[in-house]
């Protein structure tokens, strides 16, 4: 009887221990943080509904495991508020930056706390193309010394063209695999009497930004990435012939009344939010829409991914040997102090479980190699993940890396001027002189 009991006890112990040891070995281990009950961490970021709820859900794992309490607050005036808070000396413990350029500006004021080498190593090990992500979060501090400041969490892929498979089928169009095919498809659509593109640049105070994405995509597809880097850092002037050519190439789509819905006059005044709706009207106003992975949030209610809409990779020239460049963007998580609780939360955000929880909520894409792809909420995101991981060149949204006065100023307004009929040369000259003015 006694022996039997002991056996039962041993069995129970093995049952308890065994499964955890299996999971620990598989790499998809559960996040297991230290006990830091009583710690209070405040996070401030740009995410609002519905991402804020998803992010709070991710944070609840951390709260449950460590006993710390975490508060996330979001605002779409993030840029202004973080500046005010930093100048007043009371920023939230962790700041989520919508663009690395802005994080670099704030880092230069000394408001952000540099992160340790262990976090940097995690990014190098766990992210696909880890070094490029580390480079994007390494900024000069208040003394001009380069430091590593944070991690990318939630990225966007931009190099996508959205379309309706049914509309393609009705007209007998094929998804283009190369830029040459895309150009001839555009011509074919126009000669069939269809309008190939929906392009909308209006976005309130940020009007013009969708056109800067076009420029960046074209630069990556017509020149090696080193040229792109020189352009973004202004080593190559903005009014270089290469940039002017890229702008004129954008113009072949945007300035041709037959190629763009509503005619070229409508490009600057159509809202970027409303522009993709043209894919789903009856009859369709356009056949294709180039925009980042977030855009399905603006599609009409009830349309279904894979059924009513789909996407393809904005292709590269087969005649130029430039591989498969992918353009993206993302949010950077940084800390403003080196408290142990804050540091632990930064580490948690590199844990696969944090990524997988957000992935399951939708609207989240990650370059993390350790995540289980099946955790993505939809096939769309699995497809995007493949594009992101399959990129031969990954480059960050150039306008986000340029100084604010250019990347979020004269570049935007310049592109609006261009679609309104100003010549590419004049626009590029004006942008370059605005860049010279802040040097």
């Amino acid at each position, binding site marked *: 009887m006694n022996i039997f009991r002991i056996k039962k006890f041993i069995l129970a112990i093995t049952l308890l221990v065994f499964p955890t040891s299996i999971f620990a070995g598989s790499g998809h281990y559960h996040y297991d943080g230290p006990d830091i009950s009583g710690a209070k961490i*405040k996070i*401030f970021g*740009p*995410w*609002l*509904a*519905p*991402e*804020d709820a998803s992010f709070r859900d991710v944070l609840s794992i951390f709260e449950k495991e460590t006993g710390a309490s975490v*508060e*996330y*607050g*979001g*605002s*779409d*005036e993030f840029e202004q*508020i973080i500046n*005010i*808070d930093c*100048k*007043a*000396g*009371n920023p939230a413990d962790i700041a989520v930056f919508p663009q690395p350029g802005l994080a670099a500006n704030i880092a230069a004021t000394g408001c952000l706390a540099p992160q340790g080498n262990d976090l940097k190593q995690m990014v190098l090990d766990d992210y696909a193309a880890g070094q490029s992500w580390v480079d994007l979060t390494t900024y000069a501090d208040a003394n001009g010394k380069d430091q590593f400041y944070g991690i990318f969490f939630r990225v966007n892929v931009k190099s996508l063209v959205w379309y309706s498979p*049914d*509309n393609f089928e*009705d*007209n007998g169009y094929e998804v283009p695999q190369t830029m040459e095919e895309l150009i001839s498809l555009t011509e074919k659509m126009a000669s069939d009497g269809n309008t190939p593109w929906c392009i909308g640049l209006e976005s*309130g105070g940020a009007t013009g930004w969708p056109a800067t994405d076009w420029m960046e995509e074209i630069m990556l597809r017509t020149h090696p990435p080193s040229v792109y880097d020189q352009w973004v850092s202004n080593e190559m002037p903005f009014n270089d012939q290469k940039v002017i050519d890229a702008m004129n190439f954008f113009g072949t789509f945007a300035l041709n009344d037959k190629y763009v819905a509503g005619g070229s006059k409508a490009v600057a005044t159509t809202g970027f*939010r*409303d522009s993709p*709706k043209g894919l*789903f*009207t*009856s*009859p*369709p106003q356009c056949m294709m829409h180039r925009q980042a992975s*977030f855009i399905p*949030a*603006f599609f*009409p*209610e009830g349309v279904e991914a894979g*059924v*009513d809409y789909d996407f393809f990779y904005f292709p590269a020239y087969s005649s130029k040997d430039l591989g498969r460049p992918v353009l993206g963007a993302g949010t950077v998580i940084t800390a403003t102090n080196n408290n142990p609780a804050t540091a632990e939360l930064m580490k948690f955000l590199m844990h696969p479980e944090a990524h997988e929880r957000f992935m399951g909520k939708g609207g989240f894409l990650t370059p993390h190699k350790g995540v289980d792809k099946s955790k993505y909420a939809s096939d769309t995101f699995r497809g995007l993940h493949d594009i992101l991981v399959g990129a031969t060149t990954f480059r960050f949204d150039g306008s986000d890396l340029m100084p604010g006065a250019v990347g979020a100023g004269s570049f935007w307004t310049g592109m609006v001027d261009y679609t309104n009929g100003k010549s590419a040369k004049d626009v590029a000259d004006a942008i370059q002189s605005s860049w010279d003015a802040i040097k």
Partner: protein
Amino acid sequence: MKIKINFSSILSQLLLLFFVILWITPTFGLFISSFRDKDQLAISGWWTSLVTTEVNEIHRTKGKKDQVEDEGFYIIKGNLFKKDEGKKVLSYGVTSKNINAYKVGEVAILKDKSEITVFENGNYQLKSKSEFKKKKGRRIFITATSPPSFTLDNYKEVLFKEGLGQAFLNTIAVALPATLIPLIICSFFSYSLTWMNFFGRDLLLATIIASLVVPLQMSLIPILTIYNDLGALFNVEAKSFPGVWMAHTGFGLASTTFLLWNFMKSLPNEMLEAAKVDGASHYDTFVRIVIPLSIPAFASIFILQFLWVWNDLLVGLVFLDKHPSEIILTAKLKELLGSRGENWEILTTGAFISMTVPLFIFFSLQRFFIRGLVAGSVKG
């Protein structure tokens, strides 16, 4: 003579009517929009929703899962409309290239030899000799008449969204003290500026009026820095309700003092002199004579300051934390808009919901408001 008077009064009436319409039309449009479906809102103006209009829509039939076999035919039946909104189909098409190829009730024969019929009420029938193989249904393009249709979805979205009730209370918790505190302070202040003689009085008044030109945006960072130091000193949160009350008080004090001083100055001098002769102290004069006489002015200043604080977004964003227990209504509405403004239709509804309290305050204090404006302008 009589005709002339009528003419000018008709002209002024017409002018008044013109301005009323000018102001009411956008508000009315916003009101109509707040009851409209978000996708409709994006593609057509609010005036189109008032009458029956012709619309082009794309619908999808059911897929192979729903087919039934009947006397050698495979049949899929259903209705294109999700709910009955009184729409009537006029014509339809089966490809995007020709969206009204067939009249309603007509049989369309497709490439794969299957047949399709669409009826006026949206019912459809797909019929084929061979089995349907596609999982997704076929698209049907319809031209239909659409009667005016309205929905309460936007209101439900805003009212029952988590945290909105709390945000409403937060705004009240900010707005009431932030209105009453400056009102109390400036009533004492205006009295002393008007009826008490002391050294540098005019200079003080000039300074207050001059401070009206300082934009409040300029003082946000310095004030927040002071709050941080104070917060560290007393070990309290720098961003808190008392902080935002003080900020609103400070920002509102100059204009409220100026308005009230302007009013008190117009009170009859004789009355106050008589009170003095009768031996009333400054306190007695203030409480028994000046305050009762100034009620209209108080009411109008209350309304102005309350509206300002109620509609404020900037001060609330800067001096309060963004978590649910402190977020104010305007900030919450902005949050509901979404990270990229994808839910902008809730702005229409949000505007009307946040408008209710100021409207209530305005109408309940309206008689004072008008008296206050008139009383300040006519010297007794």
